């Protein structure tokens, strides 16, 4: 038996992912560009259901996050992991399952989202069958990753590997917990959580999607590709290790800050805030480590575009990780939240950190995969400058717009009235900035096209090496047992004990939990808050399908400026039947939580047919099909049943009995409402009827409320 082994690195899978990354990069950003233009030129919605902003926005976010960045992560991991472990991937079968599975899921998303099949939970819009597929593929990836690590030939696990592990494990857990939903039909489901709880879980996920999908894996990639590209070891390896563990030990908690000033309880908000602020330290540890690695190599940075990209990426990371916590500070958040500031923030991260690092990686990777030189360094440099310009043109206007709108919302005139009582004024003010943003976006897209060309040419230039044969000496295992014996035992005892003790106590804690989970929960609820009627449920589902939540929040924050504008601020108790919650995270249009009864039914009819007819200058798309498409009453029983399963107290058998009757009766009422608004030609079973019913119901229950009392409802989880 020899102690030297010959084996092959799998470059094919790397190439596959790399190509996917490049292509999805174009798709995702192009989709983004399209919807960006729709915001100042609504006709670009093309008056078809499938191309409206509401449906394309999730497509854009999913394409960028899961298709572009996702494939980028896989590319980087499949390349670096093999080399760091001196081993081929654990299983080629799993590798390819991972590739086709993941990209299949993305195609599925690209089909279902325009069709309006969505759960409406941000970054988790995909419906339950796809959610299951994601879980399966991700687990396959995790097995492949861990398997490779286990059979590695290099004893030391380079810090990047730790970041990869963190990504795999955490994302799996987050995805599963957030996607717990109750199917109502093959493509329709309701979150098992209601209102506040749904929000809490969603943003616990939402934040960590950012943390563990867009950050940790990319830090891993940075720690591999930055030293490789610059030819010098990372500034302080020790710091990188500390940085990792610090991040891991606290990052996971920082979720709730996305819900500051919402109905989420104070302590949870402050918690999110505190931890986000604490996170600056480890994040900056990573950034400084990255930048300092290049100290003394700036001459190289000038020559090599991939280093330029890397520098900007790392800087962008630093900026957004400083900005994030800043935005988590309540006072700042009260201004920034729901505005374009948030958009600017995420795009600093996405365009700068993820985008630039991915480009850098691709430019570095393709020449090596094809054993040649980059086709044109000059073009790569063009790409860099164009992309950088694009980023600036994108981010800066968004900051301006965010602050402008935030201030306009809050501004009162001397008489104590809102200076901009009409929400529309604050939107029209932003349109020029939206145009600028589109310019930036298109520059960024152009950059990607240039890259695609450059990379294509590079491939043509060289010869692809599918399997790279290398040799490594393997460690003889016998050794460990030998040298570890002795003091290991001594130190082993207390440590093992304490670990066991901890486990014991935690289990104790959980035992403490279980009974509590079974007791009735006392959320201060409002007697007058009742479940939605069948018609409203159908209307709400239309609201979800059309992605209204992308532009309209349903959460009036406890500020005078908001209560003046919208009405009484939102209470936790009002959402107990909201599966899923529809608080939203951006107000391109006004908040709708108190829209119920604000306008006559007919107004909604006209507004949906052509928003500009009721609100001149509005940038909302037309929804003519709502006037023609019929309510899918066959789906009603399934939905009522599903909702009951997740805790909405519909009487048993209601869906087979009175549900349909109630629906028809309420529809008739709405039709009368239309006709009083001199709309006589309304289609009697049109979806607009359901939607109107829902909108008119929104936030009205509390007005009927005689007094706030405590009625007990059972906690979602007890079901």
């Amino acid at each position, binding site marked *: 038996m020899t102690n030297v082994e010959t084996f092959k690195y799998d470059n094919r899978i790397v190439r596959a992912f790399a190509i996917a990354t490049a292509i999805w990069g174009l798709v995702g950003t192009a989709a983004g560009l399209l919807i960006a233009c729709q915001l100042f030129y609504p006709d670009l919605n093309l008056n078809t259901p499938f191309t409206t902003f509401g449906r394309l926005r999730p497509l854009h976010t999913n394409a960028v996050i899961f298709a572009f960045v996702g494939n980028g992560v896989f590319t980087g991991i499949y390349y670096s992991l093999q080399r760091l472990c001196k081993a081929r991937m654990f299983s080629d079968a799993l590798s390819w399952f991972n590739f086709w599975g993941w990209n299949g899921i993305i195609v599925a998303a690209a089909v279902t989202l325009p069709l309006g099949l969505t759960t409406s939970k941000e970054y988790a819009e995909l419906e339950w069958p796809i959610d299951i597929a994601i879980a399966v593929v991700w687990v396959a990836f995790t097995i492949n990753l861990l398997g490779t690590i286990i059979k590695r030939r290099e004893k030391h696990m380079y810090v990047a590997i730790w970041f990869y592990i963190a990504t795999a494990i955490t994302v799996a857990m987050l995805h599963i917990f957030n996607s717990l939903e109750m199917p109502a039909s093959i493509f329709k489901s309701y979150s098992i959580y209601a209102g506040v709880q749904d929000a809490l879980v969603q943003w616990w996920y939402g934040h960590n999607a950012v943390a563990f999908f867009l950050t940790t894996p990319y830090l891993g990639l940075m720690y591999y590709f930055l030293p490789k*590209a610059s030819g010098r*070891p990372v500034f302080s390896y020790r710091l990188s290790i500390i940085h990792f563990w*610090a991040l891991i030990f*606290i990052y996971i908690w920082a979720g709730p800050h996305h819900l500051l000033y919402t109905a989420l309880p104070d302590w949870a908000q402050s*918690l999110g805030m*505190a931890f986000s602020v604490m996170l600056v330290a480890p994040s900056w540890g990573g950034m400084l480590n990255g930048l300092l690695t290049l100290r003394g190599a700036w001459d*190289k940075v000038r020559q090599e575009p991939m280093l330029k990209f890397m520098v900007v990426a790392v800087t962008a990371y630093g900026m957004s990780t400083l900005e994030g916590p800043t935005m988590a500070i309540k006072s700042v958040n009260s201004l920034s939240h729901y505005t374009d500031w948030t958009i600017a923030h995420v795009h600093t991260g996405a365009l700068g950190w993820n985008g630039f690092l991915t480009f850098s990686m691709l430019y570095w990777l393709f020449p090596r995969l094809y054993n040649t030189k980059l086709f044109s360094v000059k073009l790569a440099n063009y790409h860099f400058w164009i992309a950088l310009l694009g980023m600036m043109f994108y981010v800066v206007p968004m900051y301006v717009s965010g602050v402008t709108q935030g201030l306009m919302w809050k501004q009162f005139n001397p008489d104590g009235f809102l200076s901009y009582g009409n929400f529309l004024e604050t939107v029209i003010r932003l349109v020029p900035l939206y145009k600028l943003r589109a310019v930036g976006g298109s520059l960024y897209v152009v950059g990607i096209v240039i890259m695609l060309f450059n990379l294509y040419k590079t491939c043509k230039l060289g010869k692809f090496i599918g399997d790279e044969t290398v040799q*490594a000496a393997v460690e003889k295992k016998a050794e460990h047992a030998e040298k570890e014996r002795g003091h290991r035992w001594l130190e082993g005892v207390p*440590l093992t004990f304490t670990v066991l003790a901890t486990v014991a106590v*935690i289990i104790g804690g959980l035992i403490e939990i279980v009974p509590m989970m079974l007791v009735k929960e006392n959320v201060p609820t409002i007697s007058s808050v009742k479940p939605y009627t069948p018609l409203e449920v159908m209307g709400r589902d239309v609201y979800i399908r059309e992605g209204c939540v992308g532009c309209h929040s349903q959460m009036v924050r406890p500020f005078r400026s908001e209560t003046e504008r919208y009405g009484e601020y939102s209470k936790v108790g009002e959402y107990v039947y909201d599966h899923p919650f529809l608080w939203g995270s951006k107000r391109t249009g006004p908040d709708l939580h108190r829209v119920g009864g604000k306008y006559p039914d007919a107004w909604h009819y006209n507004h949906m047919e052509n928003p500009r007819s009721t609100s001149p200058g509005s940038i909302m798309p037309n929804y003519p099909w709502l006037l023609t498409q019929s309510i899918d009453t066959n789906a009603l029983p399934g939905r009522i049943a599903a909702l009951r399963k997740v805790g909405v107290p519909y009487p048993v058998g209601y869906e087979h009995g009175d549900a349909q009757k109630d629906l028809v009766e309420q529809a008739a009422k709405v039709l009368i409402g239309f006709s009083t608004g001199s709309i006589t030609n309304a289609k009697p079973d049109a979806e607009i009827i359901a939607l109107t019913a829902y909108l008119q119901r929104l936030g009205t229950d509390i007005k009927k409320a005689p007094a706030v009392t405590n009625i007990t409802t059972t906690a979602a989880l007890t079901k």
Partner: protein
Amino acid sequence: MSEAALNISALTVSPDNKSAAASCAHCGLPCLTTAVRAHDKDFCCTGCQTVFEILTENGLTQFYELSDKAGVQIKRPTRREQFLFLDEPAVREKLVDFSDGKTSRVTFTVPSIHCIACVWLLENLFQFKPGVGRSTVNFPKKEVAIQFEDAKISLSELVALLASLGYEPTLNFGSLEGAKPKPAFRKLILQLGLAGFSFGNIMLFSICLYNGLDSLGTLNFKPLFGYISLGLALPVVVYSALDYWRSAWTCLRQRILTIELPIAVGIVAIFAQSCYEVFSRTGEGYFDSLCGLIFFLLIGRWFQQKSYERLSFDRDYKAFFPLSVVRKNGNRDETVPISALNVGDHLLLRHGELIPADARIVSGEGVIDYSFVTGESEPVEKRAGELVYAGGQQTGGVLEVQMTKPVSQSYLTSLWSHETFAKERNDTLDNILNRFTKRFTITVSVVALGAAAFWWAHGQPNVALKAFTSVLIVACPCALALSAPFALGTAQRLLGRQKVFLKNQHTIETLAKVNTVVFDKTGTLTAPGAAKVEFHGAALNEAEERALFSMTRHSTHPLPVRIGEAIAKQHFPETVYSFLETPGKGMEARVANQEIWMGSASWLASRNVMVPTEHQSRSNSVHIAINGAYRGCFTLQTSLRQDADKLIAALSNDYDLALLSGDNERERARFGDLFGARANLNFNQSPLNKLGFIHNLQQSGKTVMMVGDGLNDAGALKQSDSGVAVVENIGAFSPASDVIIEANNVPRLSQIMAFSKDSVRIVWVSIMLSSAYNFIGLGIAASGKLAPVVCAVLMPLSSITVVGFACGATHWLGRKHKLGGKQS
């Protein structure tokens, strides 16, 4: 692939780039007269050429693309035979870390590891020879651990392979001691990580509680979070704080008071109080403060454990002596490990080899350099029948000696059997902190009891208890415990950057206490390399000088070599014909048609050259005769290190000074002037005398610092309160000491001692600072209303300010004493 390599390398040179002065394709050094040209590349020597060929035939030329000047110049060619003794079971078994009969692993120290390329080459060792397995480099330690299959390759082959590549491992007598025990590093970072983990997570729950968790109606989170916090805190208290329990226990057993005791008490108090609150559902406890406290304390310890990987502060002669020596066995020579030598063995010592044990010369002329062993500055000539001492270095030709004493009981080595080396100085207990702790603890206990009594008297026993515990809680001297580690630790690091390496932080405190400084002469105050060379006689003309210079380049004897260096100037060496050196006597050669003789007066006389009387008496001189006619003589006088005089002057104000030299009286006058009347100068000191001298000083109540370099100072260095070992370059051998200092730093010694004094003052200030915090806390605590949140704020706040101050102030001091920044 080479493309890839090119791209990843920061500073790349393509192997065949021709600079003005052709540089070696392997080691990058300029190619001199010895240069060879092969494979249309230049090599500075055949050694380098060979390595290049080995690499090429194994297809490892990527090596050269990894970094500039990647290669290591091959000083002297090595033969496998000289390593054969490594295969002897006795030696082998000592050297290998582990062996299961089939595969073995051995760890070597390889000083020539210097760049990424080295790492790469050594970790690709398996490409060279079958049987070589996985090899792992530890760059900072300059170590390589190699697995190999006993069946396919022997230890000697392995070492030969390394040597042939220019990575000859250091093998000395000390290597046989076996691997040194691992530091407590692992355990500490385990405890640290655990504490950090729990701290971070518990804070999550605490923050909720501080922010009115119960705004959530009657949903009862409080107890739950309490339990979880407890669960997270438990391992921290048991495992992370383990060392504090241990030391506290020792304190109690030995009736002594160290900082650990009050800390332990504090931890107990916090933990007990918190548990009580959780179980009685009266509160959420102080678990966050508790874990934070331990976390910070451990960071302090971590900071304290500054170790310099390449240095060793506890070397003895074994690390200086060779591992093997050539023994005459009948008519054949064998290389044997020193451990296998017996009295009576006949040993062969080549030029530059070390005498392993006291012996009597059998044949050959000995020119023994004792400078490192006895402190004698000049090599002494020994003839057959005379005794030579272990540790001396033969600088003449081949010498055959017979051992008269075993290695360990020789004149020099017997020093290590002195009891000074037996007892381990226990300096951890007597330090600033512990001295302060005494008063501190007493005060605290008084306050605690007082508070308790007060409330008891006012008939509020529960408040009394609360007051008592909370006093103990806030009084837990966390910040206090951090003050010294961070102040002194920073000082230690600052000095380290200046190539002044301290064994541990406590050394600084001792440095500050020193009131007497004792110097060794040779190699410490005087620089071995830099001797003043003077020529006596009619000045040499250009041609003569060049001829002499060319000739000296061929000699290995220290005197001609130094003369050569002195007269080198711009001379280009000429070809030297029929060079002949008579070891220890002189050398002759034809240069530019001149017959040149160079050597001792007696030798010239023996060739009937008339040496003028005024020159005959000159000590330490080399006489020249050209074409049979006396021409004059060179004299060498050891010269002081640069600025050594300034140092003595600076120190003599506030310190008692003394000189201890193994050398003869020759230079007494000179050093008399230097040290002034007060100092006492001692010459002809044996290693034991030196040790005794220091001991006497200490008896008379002095705190002594010994500054020395040689093995002969080892005893004195060990005995002194702080021993300062001087080395020409870091990593070179230095005897056991508290401080290792690079030779060119010797003049800055006064500066360094002043700095230490100030750093200790800083510690006092930070101690005051932290106790101020403690007493603020005491105020609140004694009144019996210490809210967890107050504790949670006070504790980190105090720690951070103290740490901040300690580090900041020390850095400021560093700048004040011009210790800032890196030394180029």
